[in-house]
């Protein structure tokens, strides 16, 4: 007994590096940012306390609101097709008769390991209206007659950004779903097959309900990730009328392009607040679901 108590202090030692590093590189900057959000620091002079002026500016900042709107639109446009596609592919690739499973999984997953910055630049080039191959292909096929200036239309730009995001993540979600599917005991399927259930019935009555926790997990992570969307859209650009400026892009541009560090810190806190609300809502949702089950 004495021995165990004696050893338990090692627990502190083992978890200490996490807390020390987090205090220095995580918490301290966050608190410091809070202080900066009450200043007018611009990089050229020392920070001066200006009270709540940055936050007042923020609640009147229509561009920030627009960036929130953009982020949500892009998230919705990407997450719905992404999750449905990932789910459909996961179910198909979990079927027994499919050959070359590994090949398909690998190919579908591949876009996820390419750096988002690279993908952003790649799609920026491919959709360039003068030199990009998308217009050339469409014109060659006779679908369009004059090149389409994709990034000149707010909605087309958003759709492209959403598509790139979807393209990047559907493979990952597919793997997660496959993992979920593999966790479903085989006996259930076998029993259902013996009972003569149709394939469709098996999917809707067994697969999907059992996959619900995994679906919820994907959904929550995609909200938190989606609200922080940054690198890819940054490379594609702001779009016409700032239509593809996401929240984090706005933060980056305010702070590190226009040197409004103080205001940028306030924007960062606003983003945090939004993400917090959505995380809480989605957690509540998933808890309710668990209770139901």
């Amino acid at each position, binding site marked *: 007994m004495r021995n165990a108590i004696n050893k338990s202090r090692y627990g502190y030692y*083992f978890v200490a590096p996490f807390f020390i590093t987090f205090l220095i590189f995580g918490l301290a900057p966050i608190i*410091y*940012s809070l202080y*900066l959000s009450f200043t007018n620091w611009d990089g050229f002079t020392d920070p001066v306390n200006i009270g709540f002026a940055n936050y007042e500016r923020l609640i009147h900042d229509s561009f920030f609101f627009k960036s929130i709107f953009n982020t949500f639109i892009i998230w919705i446009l990407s997450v719905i097709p992404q999750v449905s596609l990932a789910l459909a592919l996961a179910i198909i690739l979990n079927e027994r*008769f499919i050959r070359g499973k590994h090949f398909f999984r690998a190919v579908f997953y591949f876009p996820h*390991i390419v750096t988002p910055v690279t993908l952003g*630049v*790649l799609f920026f080039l491919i959709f360039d209206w003068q030199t990009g191959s998308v217009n050339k292909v469409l014109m060659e096929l006779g679908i369009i007659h004059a090149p389409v200036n994709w990034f000149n239309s707010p909605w087309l730009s958003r759709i492209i950004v959403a598509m790139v995001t979807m393209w990047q993540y559907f493979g990952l979600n597919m793997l997660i779903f496959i*993992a979920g599917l593999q966790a479903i005991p085989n006996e259930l399927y076998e029993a259902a097959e013996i009972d003569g259930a149709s394939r469709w019935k098996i999917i809707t009555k067994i697969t999907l309900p059992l996959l619900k926790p995994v679906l919820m997990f994907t959904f929550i992570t995609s909200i938190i990730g989606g609200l922080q969307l940054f690198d890819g859209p940054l490379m594609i650009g702001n779009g016409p009328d700032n239509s593809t400026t996401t929240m984090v892009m706005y933060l980056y541009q305010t702070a590190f392009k226009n040197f409004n560090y103080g205001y940028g810190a306030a924007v960062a*806190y606003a983003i945090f607040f939004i993400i917090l609300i959505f995380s809480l809502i989605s957690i509540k949702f998933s808890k309710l679901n668990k209770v139901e089950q």
Partner: protein
Amino acid sequence: MEIQGNKQLTLHMNGRRKIFKFKPTLGKILIYFILILIAVICLLPFYSMMITSTHTNSEISRKLLLTPGTEFMNNYERLIHTVPIWRGFINSLFITITSTALNLYFSALAGYGFSKFDFKGRNILFLCVLGTMMIPSQLGIIGFFKLMNSFHMLNTYWPIILPSISNAFGIFFMKQMADSSVPKEILEAGRIDGCSEVGIFHKLVLPMLMPAVATLGIFSFIGKWNDFLTPMIILFDNDLQPLPVMIASVKSQFSTDFGAMYVGIVISVIPILIFFSIISKKIISGVTTGALKG
């Protein structure tokens, strides 16, 4: 790994058996068609990128290019002249490998600590760890920037590498793995043998956690490889920049030189493509098991 393989094998055998049950119907052909179509869509942008990188700017802007050209080296030379892209590659490798090593070691350490030591306030501390997962990485970025400035750490790798020690997801994952795969009896046996606590961790626990380490390693590696915002604001020297930042700077510097830009992205993709196709089985099974436990 073994179990996984066996499972696939049985699945395969099952598959063989079932094939006779289902005739190659229209539906099946359709399914293959869709799968192949999506695979083509996944690979087409990369194909287009490689082809385009081998042509001159005027060809790129005028024609649809489907076959390789001869201009790759010229485009490459223009790119290399201003952007040390291979240097970026090496920088990225260095940052990613050191960060991943730190992340894995300390995640395993803390995960084990939370799992097997019954210290006071353990649950609250663990909740704190989980709580930090909710904080978006951009929240403190401005304070981080100014704080690193006062630590004189700007333009060094420290602010990029050291935070990897505090990876909440890693700890969570490792704790779960330690809960299930490190039996208490072995620790007791180690203690009786007179091993120190740190020794037990290194000699007994770490080897047992190795499969989990490998899985987490894949996640950590991919995440760090793609890290963009922190290095972009922390590093000034071109020679220190990792690959993503270099690609971003290629885009801003070669705004009219599409040939060079394409070469840049080709260089950033091809090594990953090769690496991935060699160990894709490991990565995919890693991601799949990681997703299940996480």
